[in-house]
């Protein structure tokens, strides 16, 4: 297993694999990576993480899985997302360039930590799928960000990603203050300018922020017709925040208020624990894309997603619901195999996210864990 010469110090091994991954990411998302090629890389990443993360090594070994016994990437033990709340998976000797935190969905809840040794890998994995999903026409659009800037919230992986996009576009402005929320007057002025100049924009934000932005527009009785070519990337629609809208309601609202049709609104599915993201191929395959609630997500070639039966962790039969488990090569610096709490179903060349299992429904006369944790930590 060691012919790549990964034995050695963690940093040197990381650099070697990183270079190979950068070349892969640089090819973009259009060029497929066949299963054998993925498997080879995936097992090398596993071997690297097994070797340099003693906790993960012991975890895998206790399950009888080592680089010597795992003959396919699907056999690599996945780390549950919850574990990021208690441990920072990843090679021991790598320093973190940045530690991203998961958003706390309930007050006082423990937040997950994803230590990322190298932001370059993040940038390289984030941009090609973004470009493919949002800019298939190779447009260069100024970014209007409804997320706080990475300078304001360095621990947000989403802000970091939007930061990469802004760098890439060469123009972008940030309209969310981490404490005070949306800077409404500035955002109004920005969109007016776009409207007057006939200059299309790329709006990027969380579903939560867009809901608040629509409320602000309604209070002022304002409507925009953003220039043709404008588009929206929307994310985080599954988080259990207050005042959530159904997806089609949100898209209808944005269409009415901003003049950006639902066919030009793209949902991004991502999580702090993964450096790669998934997008709905709305702009690339408009003819194939159904109504907003029926859409699905696709990932880049360097991620493989499986739908597992939560009782057995075995793959479900095609077309059946299960929980999503991802193998993301971009997670070289932490852990590549991640078991989520998200329910989904495999479709076409991707998967449809059906929701998150966290935030459980009431449990009768015994208490739902989330509710109690909230009480306990509140």
């Amino acid at each position, binding site marked *: 297993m060691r012919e790549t010469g990964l034995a050695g110090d963690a940093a040197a091994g990381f650099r070697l694999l990183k270079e190979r991954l950068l070349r892969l990411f640089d090819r973009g998302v259009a060029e497929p990576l066949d299963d054998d090629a993925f498997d080879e890389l995936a097992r090398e990443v596993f071997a690297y993480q097994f070797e340099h993360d003693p906790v993960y090594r012991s975890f895998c070994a206790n399950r009888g899985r080592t680089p010597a016994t795992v003959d396919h990437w699907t056999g690599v033990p996945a780390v549950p997302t*919850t574990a990021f709340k208690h441990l920072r998976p990843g090679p021991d000797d790598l320093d973190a360039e940045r530690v991203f935190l998961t958003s706390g969905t309930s007050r006082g809840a423990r937040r997950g930590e994803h230590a990322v040794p190298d932001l370059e890998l993040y940038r390289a994995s984030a941009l090609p799928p973004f470009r493919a999903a949002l800019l298939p026409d190779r447009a260069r659009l100024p970014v209007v960000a409804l997320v706080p800037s990475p300078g304001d919230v360095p621990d947000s992986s989403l802000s970091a990603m939007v930061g990469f996009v802004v760098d890439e576009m060469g123009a972008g402005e940030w309209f969310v203050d981490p404490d005070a929320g949306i800077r409404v007057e500035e955002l109004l002025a920005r969109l007016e300018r776009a409207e007057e100049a006939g200059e299309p924009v790329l709006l990027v934000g969380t579903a939560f922020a867009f809901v608040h932005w629509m409320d602000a527009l309604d209070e002022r009785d304002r409507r925009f017709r953003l220039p043709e070519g404008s588009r929206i990337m929307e994310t985080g629609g599954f988080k259990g925040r207050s005042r959530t809208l159904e997806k089609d309601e949100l898209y209808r609202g944005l269409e009415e208020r901003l003049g950006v049709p639902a066919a030009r609104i793209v949902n991004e599915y991502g999580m702090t624990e993964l450096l790669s993201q998934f997008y709905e191929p709305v702009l690339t395959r408009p003819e194939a894309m159904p109504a907003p609630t029926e859409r699905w997500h696709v990932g880049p070639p360097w991620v493989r997603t499986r739908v597992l039966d939560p009782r057995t962790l075995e793959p479900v039969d095609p077309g059946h619901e299960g929980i999503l488990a991802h193998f993301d090569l971009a997670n070289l610096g932490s852990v590549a195999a991640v078991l989520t709490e998200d*329910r989904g179903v495999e479709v076409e060349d991707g998967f449809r996210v059906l929701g998150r299992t966290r935030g459980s429904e*009431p*449990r009768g*006369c015994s208490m739902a864990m989330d509710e109690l944790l909230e*009480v306990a930590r509140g």
Partner: protein
Amino acid sequence: MADARHFDAWCVPAWTDRAGPEGAETGIAEVRPRRATGSEAASPVLRYPELDEGSARELAHRLVAHRDRLADLPASELAHLLGRVGRRFLEPGDPLRDRALQLLPSTAGISPAMARAVLDGMAADWTPERLEGLLRADLGRPEALDAFVPGAAGGRVRAFGPRLGVHLSAGTVPGVSVTSLIRGLLVKSPVLLKPGRGDVVLPVLFLRALAREAPEVAAAAAVVYWPGGATDAEDELLRQADLVVVYGSDATVESVRSRLRPTTRLVAYRHRVSLALVGREALGPEMERAGDGDARPPAPRALARAVALFDQRGCVSPHAVYVEEGGDATPRDFAEALARSLEALDRELPSGVVDPEEASRLQQLRGTTELRVAAGEGRELWHGGQSPWTVVYDPDPAFEASCLNRMVRVKPVGHAEELPDLLEPVARHLQTVAAEGLGERAEAVCGMLARIGVSRITPIEAAPWPPPWWHHDGAGALSALIRWADVEPGVMD
């Protein structure tokens, strides 16, 4: 009912000659059991009438109209009548018991062995003797429900049940709704019971049987399932009620409370958590003994049973066990013994249906614990693979709720006296502490636990089965339902 693919999740004797509310065109809706077993064919579809505001009001009026017939029966006679029906669920060969055992697994998502255990335990409290005992223990003089009786300090007093009680029960533990229905009828209150989706079978069977035994009494009760929530029909029933009993999450209680008239009384059995405490006197060789015959079973085995019953979904089900250090066996030894007992119980009392959300949470918990074990945090993990039972030995003393389905944390505690402080953050949600091995410290520890909010302390073996006359979440089960009328000296005598 001949159709095994359906179960009619209602029984309204007051709807005399038809299956639905008189004069209204009530549709019949269908829903799958929440914990449906396997294939579509295995679980019957639950049918329920789609009440609207008008038919709900009509139903409420109809129940209230039968109140006088309840009032005419002495309470002790009511206890005997209800007990005669309830007892049938215990009698081997009785068609009522057979039918219940046939339907419970597929509608409540529990194993057949669990269905027997739950029915035996619940129905033990539905016998004439137990109900008579409940009346006396809770009210002192049950005759006060029948007539004015001399008050303790002179004058006369009389107890009245509400003109109409609306009971909304949870579906987590089958049988809880029958207990609620019986309590309401015992205080001579017409009752409209909406059982939770997992608990529709027993109240429907009970009321059907009561209707055959005593139609005039049964006509004051109705069991109707509908998916809970702020519908017009539910709102109307809450408006018609004088007293509402609700079992459920804090969010459910909040929702119901916000829809009541200011004059309506609310008895809320909201979310509770229970736990166990094993003192050092119960640790050691005694943990290993067989516990056959008359002897109390060893603590790990008793605790395994308390955790497994109701698949841990009862408010009495322990989420965690605190084990004292300094005994002959360590808390870690206890955890291992508990795991062995849970493993054995998995054969005797198999788990029911674990829904995908619960299974996912369990995978997250197990995987995360494995990593924390690997990280040398002093934890240990035992689990049943595809069986959900899971024991985590967790040196962190902070209380954490279980994700249920037989997942229990074992936590060391230096001295039992430290427990109340550890529970302080969840004090408002505490219910049962199953305690053993406290020796002479028992009185002091019980005092401290009760002071912070624990309402029931019991031997571990008895934890799943509070007696009918317990102070349920701190108040008498019947006295919570009644109002007193006083006639002061000089009027009647």
